[in-house]
């Protein structure tokens, strides 16, 4: 068989080849190291592209007059509605954080990178401004019952809030307050929700993942540029293990897990390599699972993150919280390449990418024995 061309490789990885073609491609790649290399590279490009495009969603100061030469912010009904939705999300987030603090499952730590709607936020966006406790309950039950309900603008906005939350503790409330102020609502609507828990829940995985990635990237950049004194402060902080959440006793590393499950393993490790991506050391493993190929990227353990410190019991992700796959309702969504991200107890960032729904990826993650 001829070597695979790049377009075919991408089509294969995107799950866009017909079964027969896909099988031929897989067979060829198994016997051809050049093509296996090309596949690994394409995997990297796909994952990196998604990450880069994610940065484009960071469009702060929406509607600020003159920011892009657009007309000044108009406070129309749908804008007000969106703001109500944002407030509802904050309320729900705060209450949810409280629940989570009590040991409820932490599957929100699974970040769904590319599917349209984050379920909780959508559900929350539907409820104008319920009191905290009911908001959380509604948020959860609605998420199960009606994953794609909610007003679209509210949902889009909710995702924004999500992204905004990744900016960290300080900026998020400011942005919220700004938005609310723009709608001439009293900022106090937002204030009571600005608890540590709110921040922690929002930050739980995404914020940590993001800032962590930044820090690591920064470190990598410095190393690449051979600037010994550029980020000494950060380096020290990063390497100080005492600031780091203690590894869970039951939290095995990837390798250990793989062998632990190996006996009945319905997956196969196709390839493993170490590489530097965007200045970050990454271990990339490609598994064949359930008829598809998935890529698991494991970042270096790290964490000198302020958010991570707050309280011991919260700093360590719950051991009894294997990510429960979100409701099956969205499984019917058209399959495309998706990525889920999470961190393990050591703070190593994992991304799992493959031509499967986020829910299926979450199941594959469990299958691979990764918490």
């Amino acid at each position: 068989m001829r070597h695979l061309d790049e377009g075919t490789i991408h089509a294969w990885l995107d799950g866009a080849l017909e079964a027969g073609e896909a099988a031929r491609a897989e067979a060829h790649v198994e016997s051809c190291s050049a093509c296996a290399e090309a596949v690994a590279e394409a995997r990297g490009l796909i994952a990196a592209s998604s990450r880069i495009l994610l940065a484009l969603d960071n469009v702060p100061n929406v509607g600020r007059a003159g920011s892009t030469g657009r007309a000044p912010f108009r406070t129309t009904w749908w804008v007000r509605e969106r703001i109500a939705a944002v407030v509802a999300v904050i309320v729900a987030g705060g209450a949810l954080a409280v629940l989570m603090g009590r040991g409820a499952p932490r599957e929100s730590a699974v970040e769904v990178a590319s599917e349209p709607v984050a379920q909780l936020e959508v559900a929350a966006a539907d409820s104008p401004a319920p009191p905290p406790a009911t908001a959380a309950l509604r948020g959860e039950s609605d998420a199960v019952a009606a994953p794609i309900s909610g007003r679209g603008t509210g949902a889009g906005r909710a995702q924004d809030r999500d992204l905004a939350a990744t900016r960290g503790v300080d900026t998020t409330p400011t942005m919220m307050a700004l938005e609310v102020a723009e709608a001439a609502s009293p900022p106090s609507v937002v204030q009571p929700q600005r608890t540590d828990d709110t921040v922690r829940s929002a930050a739980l995985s995404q914020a940590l993942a993001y800032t962590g990635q930044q820090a690591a990237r920064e470190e990598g950049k410095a190393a690449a540029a051979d600037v010994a004194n550029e980020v000494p402060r950060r380096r020290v902080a990063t390497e100080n293990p005492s600031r780091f959440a203690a590894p869970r006793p039951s939290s095995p590393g990837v390798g250990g897990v793989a062998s632990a499950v190996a006996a009945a393993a319905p997956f196969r490790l196709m390839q493993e390599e170490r590489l530097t991506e965007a200045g970050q050391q990454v271990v990339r493993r490609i598994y064949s699972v359930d008829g598809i190929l998935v890529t698991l990227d494991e970042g270096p353990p790290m964490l000198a993150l302020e958010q991570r410190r707050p309280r011991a019991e919260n700093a360590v992700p719950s051991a009894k919280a294997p990510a429960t796959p979100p409701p099956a309702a969205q499984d019917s969504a058209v399959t495309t390449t998706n990525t889920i991200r999470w961190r393990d107890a050591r703070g190593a960032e994992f991304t799992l990418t493959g031509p499967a729904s986020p829910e299926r990826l979450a199941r594959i993650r469990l299958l691979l024995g990764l918490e």
Partner: protein
Amino acid sequence: MTDDVERLFRTYNAPLVRYLTRRLGDRDWAEEVAQETFLRALRQDRIDNERAWLFAVATNLVRDEARKDSRRRRHLALLAEQERAEEAVEPEPTSLERAQDAAMARRAVEALAERDRLALLMREEGLSYDEIAVALDLSPGSVGTTLSRARRRLVQVYEEQQRASARGKHAAS
């Protein structure tokens, strides 16, 4: 189509707005275009491949408007992002990095050929190869090549900027 539009909106508004925001660098503008797209759906008797249709119509709306003042708009979007990057001050290193990241990502996306860019952004919103082919009037067989070219170029330009930024910091220190 009237009854369906609400469902369409609920299902596709979020991805459509995100797609448009990534394309345009301006959320308000993106939301306007998305709303216009759904209005057009309302006037449509029947839509076969709805996702492909919506993305194609939104893309055409952008294209039509962009013809008028594309360069100025794109330039403004870029300026706005740079301004945000510069505005972010010391106490918020994270947000500074994020703003820089966004500006680099924006430049990388702008470096792509229009068709490659659109195909990639559509793919990121979950469109299948067939849907992308329909929306962009490509042959289905060429979508993989289009995407591979787009991804390679995107990552390349982005990483070049990262290296340049690292050198800049090095020179400054």
